Each structure stands twice: as C-alpha cells, then as structure tokens.
C-alpha cells in the first residue's frame, strides 16, 4: 500500500512539474497576447487539473493556490476583460509557490516513509554466473515462492523477466523472508540469497526498474576512484612494458578494456541534460526584459544534449550572465529598433550542439552589437596598445580586450559598447572546465558568444609532448593535427616566424620558448615536430621536441599557490608516475600574441 502511495506521489510530482513547465511557456505567450482566449482556457484548465491532483493527495496548500488562480482566471474569462500585467505577475508568483511546494513534497514523503509502518523486507537473489537461462530459473523460483507466499514486489518486473530482461540478479519483496530465504537457498542455480534491511534499502530502492537514486557525493567519489584506477593502470602498463614480458600483454589488454568500460559507464551515469538550465531561460528573459521595458523572445536548441553534471554546474552562472548581457545590453529598446528598421521584438537564440568530443553553446542576440571603436578607445586609454598599432589591429584582437579582467565596468562602456560586463568572469569559468570562449559581433546586427568545452572535466584526452627536456600535456580539444616538417619550411613575415600550410599563413611558437625553457641549439632537430593548435577560431603552429602520442588522463586541479600560474589548467600523473602539467592553450596563445605585438 505504501508503495502505491509513493508511486502516486512520484507520478504527481512528475506530472505537475510538466504542467508547470507548460504553464511557463503558455503564460509567457499569454502575456504577449493577453486577449488570446484559447491560451487563457488552457492555462485555466491546467490549474484546474493541478488543483484536482493535489486535492486527491491531500496537498492542501497547492490546492488552495491553484484554486485561487483558477477563480481569478475564471472571472477574467467571464467578464471578457483582458488579463492585466498585475494578474499575470500573480499567476507567475503562484506558479513559483506551487513549484516550491512540489519540490518539498519528496522530502516529506521520504521522512514519512521512514516513520511509516515497516514494509516487508527485500530478498536479493543472485543466480550462478554460468546459469543457462536466468529468466527461466528466476521464474521457477518466483513460482515456487508464490506457492507459499504473496510476492509484493519484484525487480526487474515480472513482465521484464518474462521477456528475458534479467541478468543474474533479482529482488523480491515478501513477508516471512527468513523462511523464504531458506527455501530459495535449497533451490537450483542459486549463488547467494540475502535479506536486505530497510536502512540499506534506502540507498538503493528496488521500486522502479528505470533506476535508483544515488548520492551525488558518492558519484563524485566513484569517479575519483576510477580516475585513480586509470592512473595506476597506466603506471602498471609502463612498468610491465619495461620488463618486456609479452605474457602480460593479453591481461593488460583485457584490463584496459574493462577500465575503459567502467570509465564510460561512470561518465554516463553522471550525465544530465542541458535543459536543467536552459528551461530556466524563457522565464528569466520574460522577467528581466519586463523589468527593463524591452520586448524579446528566446529560442532554444539542443536542450536535450547531456553533459557531466559538474560541467553543468561550472557553466550555469556564465550562461545566465551571458543571457543577462544579451537582454540588458544587447537587445535595444523598441524605439531604437524601430529607427533601425528592425523587428520590434528582439530575439535571443541559445544553441547547443556536439562538435567532435566537445560541446558548443552559442548565445546569440540580434541587438546592437559591440561598438569596437569604443572598446579600442578604452584599450588605448588603459595603455593596452600604442597609437601606432591602432591602424593594424584586427577586429578579433579588439574584442579580445573585453576578456581582460577589469577592462570594462557597466558605467563606463556597456552603455556604448553594448556588452562587456564580466566577460573575464565567463572566460575564467570556461578555463576552469577546460574550455574556451569566443565572441563575434556586428554593429546593429547582434552578438554571438560561443562557449566550447569538453564533454567531461575529470578525464580528458591529451596529447603528450616533450619540450626542453620536460613533459607537457595538451588538451586534445585544441589539437587540430600533428606532423613533422623540415626546418627549412619556416619563414619570416614581419619579423615573426610563420609556416605556410595549405595556403594559410600560421604564426609559429616554440613550446620551450613559451615556457621559458632555455634550449640547447646543438640538440635542435632539423625535422620539426609541429602541431596545429586551434583556439577560438584562431590557428597557430606549436613546435615541440618530441611527440609521445595521445592518452586519457585524469585532471587534478593544481594545488595552491600553483593554481595562480596561468600557463596551466591542471596537473596529471602519466604512465611512469611522473606529474605532468596540462597547458592552458587559450591562455598561452593569448599572451604570446600580445607579447609579440608589443615587442
């Protein structure tokens, strides 16, 4: 019986949540066209449904609020009046209140459940591994128990077992569990029978075949352990290879595959959809644009893409920040848009997509764009460039100033430039998740901010290289290609070393120079190990001493005070147990560029 109620509660929460999301869209539409009777009727109907559902489960407060809104809406409907802004605000407030009440329900139920009458225990049954037909064996056991005891619950479900969806483990809930356990133990094909106590069960409920609830901290721990495993395995591989024993090879391969699988599963378990943040945007746009007296809509694409939950946490503030910038500084007031012959309604578009192993999120607005002249002027005033450079500086280089900490403040530039608040904060956030941020803008057409980041933060693919006798790891996200080239293919253009590669001229940097390592010229190779690095749509060639190939590594944050060194994003342990620094390529490229420009 208790399970039934719990199932209803979950169903209620799920369904009410869906209704609230639908309401959020509908009420925003209604606000745009308060005279739309169809939308009004649907909003009314949904509140009526929520009222009925909550009354059934005795959630008095939700019932009261939805009843109140329902009454208000009914009056509006009958009088034929248009829904006022105040009323719409009230509807929104009511939705917020209901949402909070619903989110609190689960917690109460969990408590109630612990306090409630004890349920029958769960018996965990593990079948022998080499059992031929696990479903048939499970069915024999279930039927045998059923001859003596009513089974309250089975997981996987009876239907799943019937259709063969069972491995070598299943759970049943019934009373007289000790006697039943003894009976099962005497049966064929049984490896282990265990009665699970209720407190243990709390951590892994058997109800719902879809999944179980897991503590997030445990997940983090699990990922850390897998990370350690990857590292120690890689050390083991190196050690055994050094010994040159071929016998180990097969075992190592098997082991490697298992660790790979484990890693993938752990990564998959941690995935959450971007919609967790994206779904908040419409309401956010609505509230903030209303406050500012602007009109705009938002389009969202790719909300179903899943990312690691810590990545989502890492980018949620920057995302909100960028949306706010677009609303506040990007989109113009109606009068201004009219004068420019633009559609009165401003438009913000958020697009997420997967590009190779990365996630790309773009936030675009069709607003006024960034005034590059104002940015340039400010850069000059701040002494970031000299007068002689003003004519030769590119648009991209100008925009780059926006990412310098403290470059802009809302008072001084945002009103003119249209954007610029806190882009350094966004950049820093992206850096900490191993990603990069780029900006494109056109006057009176709008601005697009692109954020690129790896799917997972904890384990990333890197390319290992040697430079100046030291080992460095470069995130694969930025490595376009690697090749060897003869030294004679380097040329000079305006005193800078460049390489011509398939008709494009790419600037060349030596990693040992970049890292400030003095290299010995005698040792210098005539064949150069080159890598094409692409950062924020900009490509350059990085020359290293030696390639060691790519591998998956576990990123560890740098301990203080090393974490303030901007050249590195983190540290990892490679095969032989040596620590290896992971380079922050966007940061390095950025600094090299301006050091060179300055000299």
């Amino acid at each position, binding site marked *: 019986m208790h399970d039934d109620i719990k199932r209803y509660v979950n169903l209620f929460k799920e369904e009410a949540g869906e209704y609230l999301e639908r309401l959020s869209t509908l009420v925003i539409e209604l606000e745009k066209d308060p005279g739309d009777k169809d939308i009004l009727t649907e909003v009314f109907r949904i509140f009526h449904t929520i009222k009925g559902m909550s009354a059934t489960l005795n959630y008095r407060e939700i019932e009261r609020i939805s009843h109140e809104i329902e009454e208000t809406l009914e009056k509006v409907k009958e009088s034929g009046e248009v829904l006022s802004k105040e009323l719409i605000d009230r509807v929104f407030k009511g939705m917020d209140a209901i949402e909070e009440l619903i989110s609190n329900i689960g917690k109460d139920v969990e408590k109630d459940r612990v306090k409630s009458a004890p349920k029958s225990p769960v018996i965990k049954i593990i079948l022998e591994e080499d059992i031929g*037909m*696990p479903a*048939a064996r499970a069915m*024999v056991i279930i039927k045998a128990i059923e001859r003596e005891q009513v089974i309250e619950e089975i997981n996987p479900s009876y239907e799943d077992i*019937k259709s*063969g969806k069972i491995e070598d483990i299943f759970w049943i809930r019934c009373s007289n569990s000790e006697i039943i356990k003894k009976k099962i133990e005497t049966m*064929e094909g049984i490896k282990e029978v265990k009665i699970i106590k209720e407190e243990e069960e709390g951590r892994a409920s058997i109800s719902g075949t879809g999944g179980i609830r897991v503590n997030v901290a445990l997940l983090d721990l699990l990922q850390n352990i897998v990370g350690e495993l990857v590292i120690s395995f890689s050390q083991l591989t190196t050690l055994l290879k050094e010994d040159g024993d071929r016998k180990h090879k097969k075992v190592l391969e098997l082991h490697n595959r298992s660790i790979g699988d484990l890693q993938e599963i752990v990564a998959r378990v941690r995935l959450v959809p971007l919609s967790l943040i994206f779904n908040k945007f419409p309401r956010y746009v609505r509230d903030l644009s209303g406050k500012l007296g602007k009109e705009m809509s938002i389009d969202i694409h790719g909300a179903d893409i899943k990312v690691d939950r810590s990545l989502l946490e890492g980018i949620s503030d920057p995302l909100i920040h960028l949306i706010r910038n677009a609303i506040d500084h990007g989109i113009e007031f109606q009068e201004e848009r009219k004068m420019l012959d633009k559609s009165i309604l401003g438009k913000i578009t958020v697009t997420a997509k997967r590009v190779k192993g990365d996630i790309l999120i773009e936030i675009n607005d069709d607003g006024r764009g960034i005034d590059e002249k104002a940015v340039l002027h400010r850069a000059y005033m701040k002494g970031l460039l000299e007068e002689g450079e003003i004519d030769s500086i590119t648009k991209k280089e100008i925009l780059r100033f926006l990412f310098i900490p403290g470059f802009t403040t809302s008072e001084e530039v945002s009103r003119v430039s249209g954007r610029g608040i806190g882009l350094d904060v966004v950049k820093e956030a992206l850096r900490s998740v191993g990603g990069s941020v780029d900006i494109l803008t056109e006057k009176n057409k709008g601005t697009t901010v692109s954020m690129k980041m790896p799917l997972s933060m904890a384990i990333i693919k890197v390319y290992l290289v040697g430079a100046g006798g030291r080992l460095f790891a470069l995130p694969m996200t930025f490595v376009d290609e690697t090749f060897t080239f003869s030294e004679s293919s380097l040329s000079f253009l305006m005193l800078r070393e460049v390489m011509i590669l398939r008709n494009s001229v790419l600037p060349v940097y030596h990693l040992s120079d970049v890292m400030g390592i003095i290299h010995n010229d005698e040792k210098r190779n005539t064949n150069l190990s080159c890598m094409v690095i692409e950062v924020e749509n900009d490509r350059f060639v990085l020359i290293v001493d030696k390639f060691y190939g790519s591998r998956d590594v576990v990123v560890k944050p740098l301990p203080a005070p090393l974490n303030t060194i901007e050249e590195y994003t983190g540290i990892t342990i490679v095969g032989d147990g040596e620590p290896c620094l992971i380079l922050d390529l966007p940061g390095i490229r950025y600094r090299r560029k301006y050091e060179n420009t300055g000299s």
Partner: protein
Amino acid sequence: MAVKVLIVDDAIFMRKMLGDILIKGGYEVTAEAGNGSEAVEKYMEYNPDLVTMDIIMPDMSGIDAVKEIVKKDPEARIVMVSAMGHQSLVVEAIQAGAKDYVVKPFQPSRVLEAVQRVLNL
C-alpha cells in the same frame, strides 16, 4: 513402489536416452509420447507421477500440452526439457505450470536432480 514417469519428446533417440537415465536412477518409465496431444492422452491414461516434456514438437507444442495437463490436473509435476536459446518458451511453460526445466544437451545427473527437486515440492 517406483515413481512413474511419462517421457514426451518427438525424437525417439531422446526418449531412449532420457528413459535410460531415469531407469538407472530408479524410476519407472510408464509411458512415452511423441507429440503434445499424445502426451495429454497418455497422461490421462497412465496418471504418472512426473512428466518430462520437450517443447518443440509436431501436432501440439509442449507448452500447450502443459496447459492442457495442468487444466486437468493442477498438481501435475512437469519438467521441461529444452534446447539452449529457448528461454522465452521455457518461461512460458513455467508460467503455464511446469515446475522446472533441464537444458539440452544435459548431463544425466542434471536430469535426475531436476526430477528429484520437482518430486520433493
């Protein structure tokens, strides 16, 4: 008195093999049947203590035969004998009332164990 067994299988070879195992194990093979409907008839005629039942047979399948027999005798003790890979059929037979199963190819000891288990129920 020895336990009476009815062996149902469309292959004579299989019936012979099963019969030998059971006789060696001290059972009495009281009758044999080569298809489902024959199995139902023989069950009614001989009223055996136990049936070993093949699944895929001409005329009437082992599953339908189980259903028919259980309808007539809810206490019937039937052990399915099935080839590997017929899990869903075995599950269906168990749902229909068969008490256990043995996978072909089988070890004699496996057959005897399954038979003993079912008799002990």
